[in-house]
């Protein structure tokens, strides 16, 4: 049994929980880092006010699992929708541009991460803003793509495959808006905290947002290939 191992630990286990615990504000360290002690250096206190990168990462993975399940379900709808009366739909040229934009945005986001690691705050901000701009441009190109589809006689209410062009892009776009909000949050952190935020918490935030952003990138590429190849 583990008893001997824990006998030593037992002595330290009577740590008191400080008064600004969960009763006052919900325990989860304020993501804006404003709360005193939000960065959580409580001297080895294992309670959850201590900043825990794992919480952020697990949460993001769990969120992404749900998002991926929904897109998997929608993709299966597309693949399984009836063959009858379906006509191949030409991929709007704008969606090629979209694909390029979002792929590049993943690259710029990665560059931001490298700047963070190399401790170059100005470059970090520049790459973040570039990613943000590319994300917004992606959404714009999607809207233009919709107009292109409508001009070609592909409407929302029609064969499920036509609807899917709009629906898949809209749902992906809605999720990307969430990603843009997250990047905006990184920018705000950078502007408000300057380079003080250098450290584990900042790196965690960056990697968690990156996880989301790259996954949205991947989902778009999947949807694009699905619409392009599986006519």
């Amino acid at each position, binding site marked *: 049994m583990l008893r001997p191992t*824990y006998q030593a630990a037992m002595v330290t286990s009577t740590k008191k929980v400080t008064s600004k615990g969960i009763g006052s504000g919900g325990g989860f360290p304020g993501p804006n880092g404003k709360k005193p002690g939000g960065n959580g250096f409580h001297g080895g206190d294992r309670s959850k006010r201590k900043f825990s990168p794992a919480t952020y990462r697990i949460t993001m993975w769990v969120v992404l699992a749900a*998002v991926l*399940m929904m897109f998997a*379900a929608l993709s299966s709808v597309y693949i399984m929708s009836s063959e009858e009366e379906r006509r191949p739909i030409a991929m709007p040229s704008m969606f090629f541009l979209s694909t390029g934009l979002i792929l590049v945005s993943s690259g710029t986001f990665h560059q931001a991460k490298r700047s963070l690691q190399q401790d170059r705050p100005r470059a970090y901000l520049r790459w973040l803003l570039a990613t943000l701009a590319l994300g917004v441009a992606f959404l714009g190109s999607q809207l233009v793509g919709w107009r292109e589809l409508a001009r070609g006689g592909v409407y929302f*209410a029609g064969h499920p495959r036509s609807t899917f062009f709009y629906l898949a892009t809209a749902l992906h776009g809605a999720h990307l808006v969430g990603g843009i909000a997250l990047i905006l949050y990184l920018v705000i952190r950078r502007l408000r905290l300057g380079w003080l935020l250098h450290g584990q918490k900042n790196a965690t935030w960056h990697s968690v947002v990156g996880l989301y952003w790259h996954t949205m990138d991947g989902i778009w590429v999947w949807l694009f290939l699905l619409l392009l190849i599986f006519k």
Partner: protein
Amino acid sequence: MSAETHEGVHRHPAPTGFIRKYIFSIDHKVIGIQYIMLALAAVLVGMIMSLLMRLNLSWPGTKWPILETLFPTGAPGGVMTPEFYLSLVTMHGTIMVFFVLTTAPQGGFGNYFLPIQIGAEDMAFPYLNMLSFWVTLVGFIVILLAIVVEGNASAGHWLSALGTSFTGGSGTVGPIGGWTGYAPLSALGKIAGPGQGAGMNLWVISIAIFCVGSLLGALNFITTLLNMRTKGMSLMRMPLTCWAWFTTAVLALLSFPVLLGGGILLLLDRIAGTSFFIPSGLYVSGLLSGSNPNFPLHTGGSPILWQHLFWFFGHPEVYIAILPGMGATSHILATFARKPVFGYRAMVFAIFAIGLLGFFVWGHHMFISGMSPYSAIAFSVLTLSIGVPSAVKTFNWLGTLWGSRIRFTTAMLFALGFVSLFVAGGISGLILGQSSLDLPMHDTYIVPAHFHLVMGVASIFGMFAALYFWFPKMFGRFMNETIGRIHFWVTFIGVYAIFMPMHIMGIVGMPRRYSSFTEYRFLDSLHPLVVLVTVAAIVTISVQVLFYFNVFWSIFKGKKAGDNPWEATTLEWTTATPPPHDNFAGVLPTVYHGPYEFAVPGAPNDFVMQTDAEADVSSGNGHKH
């Protein structure tokens, strides 16, 4: 009781205002009770609906003046219309599955006890936790609105002002579509007939809202369990309840997004003119698709697609309902048999195996949809293989009981009842899981008999057991044991008297979902059985009044309980009764043992608390991790 939980007692400032404390609370314990109260309210609605259905089945054509007063369109002259009956089927199923069987086991007891049992102060995201309850409550309000809107012409007219799609008031009571909402009927809108107007829109919206609430909850459960276990609480030292809630959360996380996606598509079909679930050339209510401005042209949809999406969610949902009951049963059996859970590891793997297999068997709900016989065989084999982990669990429960001196508390009785119902209901699953047998039986009463026993009543018994067991911890008072025993025995015999005859009806060929059988001569001989079921249902439902009384009376007047009244071992029994705002009064416990160290040789008591640093159970029959 270990020493350290009494040291350095330091209470957090708990919220003081009534609203922050009891209404918009971020305390997982309050939220858990809120979920349980929601389920208690919802189950009342669902139960009354089942009573109305039974009355109509036994004595069709009887005038019930009160029905006419309440539902002038659904029961003109006091006689229930078939449409009224079908909407009762729909709402009973929807409310019971979503707002009772999904809320109480996971949102209720899981919320209250998972953080305490792993030694955490609260959930990982308390505000998100509050949000998930309130979102779920909004879903419940919307589903109640669906009844009002569909059954009430003036309310439907009022809502129709909000948009052309909301044109309700079709003269029934609530939407019609079953809890499964099968397309194309559910996808067409008002043109498809009664019960397909505004209420059906609200039905879909309510389900979508419920999905969001459940997803938020699942996110919280998973993060909390993985990240906030206290020192020494290794995964294999967690109570089986925690394993069950965790697996349930994973199932919810992976299945609800699929239903949410499907629900969005269904709603678009209904209000935006898309054709995901509407096939070409559909002829409905005397109209051909495209021949009438009220029924625009639809091409290329597939109604079967909805069934795939629905049941990909729907089957895991069955386990979402019952896994927490299994966890609670294991927990309670061990406590009152005063023995460790037999085969703890096997139990953990069985929970996981059931959860995993649950994702690959949705097709067994669709054997009669015209699927390829080869697919049916695959789904059949996978379905029957769930019998293996289920049997592992059952035999381990029996192994836990073997040679024990059982303390027959009400909680224990209900846990034993769970095992009985799970086996009795599961057996017919082995019959229905085979496609060749399912084909003739699918639309008969044997299917309701099967799923009510195994998923409905067994899960509810798990929750009864959990409530009687944890009530002293939650409210500081025992529930009345005498009333509890009466409640158990009447309910136990009652549910068997309700659902066992339904097996026979099903084998004879009585079709389900029919409002009456007066036109079917071959079923006349079954009528005494139908009446028997109704009488049993009336008795069983009546005795639930005692249960409700017991709950609310005991909260205020029950016998006072100590910190560990059942002499149990897990963390919730190490803290005060009821637990303080931060669960452990400022001192998180440290865990030294597995969760079920009962009958430990040489120990001063016959059990060792998880926090007991002094006890040495290495030579006992505990679990060596």
